[in-house]
């Protein structure tokens, strides 16, 4: 292979490896960015859903309080709206829950709460208001607690995922570091070969021809390889020989 081919191929290798390391870094960073963004989305979504569930229960609670104060056995619009909001939030939570088991206590608290409300509004005879308030406050607190517990568990899971993300970030660095190291090795090798095969013979040729012009001293330039540099050195030596012979004549 000639000089041009070798140098072009050398640069080609470097360019490809740099491109490769760029692509690897891009892919890894992109993947890490997506994981981070997913985690943040998941976090804000779980907070939002918990807030919606708490608001919905709050709304139902105000409907119950209103009924109690007014002595009504018919819940107002807030009860239905609260229930609807809660069910819609719960459906979303169920759809995204990574570990289905974490919703068990929420389902159980919801049915207990619903049962007490149903009994009250269906005209179930509580002995007095305080009996209802006692059972209601129990299920209400349990329901609220279950929603808060769900929020805490979700946050703990996201914290675990964040730790995993931290380790993934370290892993994402490795391909980049390896590609970068490979690029450094190839660039160093390229610099070494260019110096050995082209720079050194050229400098030595330059020095030798200078010496020849000054003192007409014969010279020999050592080259590695069999490319144009080798033939150039040989031809310059031949020219010098011819010149010396002519001078003698």
């Amino acid at each position, binding site marked *: 292979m000639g000089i041009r081919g070798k140098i072009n191929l*050398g640069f080609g290798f470097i360019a490809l490896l740099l491109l*490769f390391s760029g692509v*690897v870094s891009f892919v890894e960073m992109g993947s890490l960015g997506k994981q981070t963004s997913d985690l943040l989305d998941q976090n804000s979504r779980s907070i939002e859903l918990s807030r919606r569930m708490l608001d919905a229960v709050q709304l139902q609670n105000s409907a119950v309080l209103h009924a109690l104060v007014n002595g009504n056995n018919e819940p107002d619009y807030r009860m239905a709206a609260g229930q609807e909001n809660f069910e819609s939030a719960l459906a979303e939570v169920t759809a995204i829950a990574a570990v289905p088991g974490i919703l068990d206590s929420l389902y159980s608290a919801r049915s207990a709460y619903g049962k007490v409300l149903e009994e009250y509004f269906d005209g179930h005879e509580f002995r007095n208001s305080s009996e209802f308030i006692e059972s209601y406050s129990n299920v209400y607190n349990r329901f609220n607690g279950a929603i808060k517990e769900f929020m805490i568990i979700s946050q703990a899971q996201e914290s675990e995922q964040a730790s995993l993300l931290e380790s993934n970030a370290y892993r994402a660095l490795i391909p980049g570091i390896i590609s970068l190291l*490979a690029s450094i090795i190839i660039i160093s*090798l390229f610099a070494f070969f260019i110096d050995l095969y082209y720079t050194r013979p050229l400098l030595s040729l330059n020095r030798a021809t200078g010496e020849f012009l000054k003192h007409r001293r014969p010279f020999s330039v050592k080259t590695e390889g069999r490319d144009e540099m080798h033939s150039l050195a040989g031809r310059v030596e031949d020219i010098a020989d011819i010149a010396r012979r002519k001078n003698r004549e």
Partner: protein
Amino acid sequence: MRYHIIARYIGIVLLINAAFMLVSAVISFSYGVDTAFYPLLLSGIITGAIGGFPLIFVGRTQSISTKESYCIVVGSWLIACLFGTFPYLLWGGEFDVFTAWFESVSGFTTTGSTALTDVEALPHGLLFWRSSTHWLGGIGVVMFALVILPVMGRTKMTLYSVELSPLARDNYKYRAQKLVRILVSLYLGMTVLSTVLLRISGMPFFDAVNHSFSVTATGGFSIKNASIGFYDNAVAEIILIFFMTLSSIHFGLIFATITGKHNNILRSEVTRFFLATLFFAGLLVSINLFFTDTYQSWGEALRNGFFHTVSNMTTTGFSRAQTNLWPSFSILLLIFVMFQCGCAGSTTGGIKSDRVWLALKVLKAKIMQQQHPNAVVRLKLNNIPQDDSVINFAMFFIVVYLLLVLVGTLIVTATGLDLLTGFSLILASMSNVGPGFGAVDTVNEFSQVTPFIKTISTIFMLLGRLEIFGFVQLFLLKWWR
């Protein structure tokens, strides 16, 4: 010294590594693009690019000096080990930098000890790469590389002579170029034959391939946490015992035996000594296991005793029992055979049976000379008179070997390891056996040791694989004339 020539040959070794990484990636692909596919592909591309780069500039060479060949061999081992960590590091899992380096060095030096707690968690592609490091290490990365190179025999012979133990060279009767071909064909043949036989014995094909890579190289990596004990297959164990023993015999002699040459296995006194030691050590261990009630039946005692004796003496390191629980006599015998190991000219590590046999002959000669002070005793090995320089070097090697094991034990016990663990850890690393005893037994191997001890172990693995001086010379190049 011509660094560009060194770069060319190391580059070729890297290209072979890259080829095996890509084959492993194909295996990953065939198993439904498992998690190792991307790490193996990436590693293969990077290793191939770096390995191929020097070939653009540096042409073939007809001559190569001994100093350069030393640099190529030692450089190849180190760089192959370094690039061998890439698939592990990129895959992640249990691998940190130290574990990846340990696993890679353990693979290429055919030591076969693992720093992983759960080998079965690795995907198929990575398991294959891990076994490939054994296979490549077994034949000698450099020697293997030379077969595919259309260069002259002289270059081959110079490189090749560094790779094998000095005693091994005297025994070969073939021309260097032909010899390399013979060795590789034999190695390939043994790998294929052991795969077929293991498959017939009932081992799944993928498992059979991986274990045959391991057994031919006398490596010891298994793809199961319980090693060979997982299969509980007596036929497979007999096949493995046969191939472990065969791989520990001088490859030139195996070829001579197959082709019906005069200089065959049974005529070699070193091989006879090795086989006799192996048999008697196995028998003694089995008897000890039976009479100490470690195993209730003779069958189990013989099966376990012989399997572990062969595994340790051939420096393979496969296991089927927790040898840590064995009686002290058996453990000591296993430690003894871990010093002697197989024959020169094979893929085993350790002091080598040739040197031990020579040492016994020297001992006999010294006693004889004391009785007959004027007698001229000429030491012969396989009927070939040995030069004093060869004998002196062999004795010197044994002394240095023992000293290094002692120094290594001192270093690791200084970190708090107990004596049995520290001593067996260093010996198992230096002799390229694999698991040791104590905290580095057949169950835990090196998964519980600190990164510092892992690093020390890898240094001893390299020292053992390159027969001590091959490795040490690299640091004394400046004074090498």
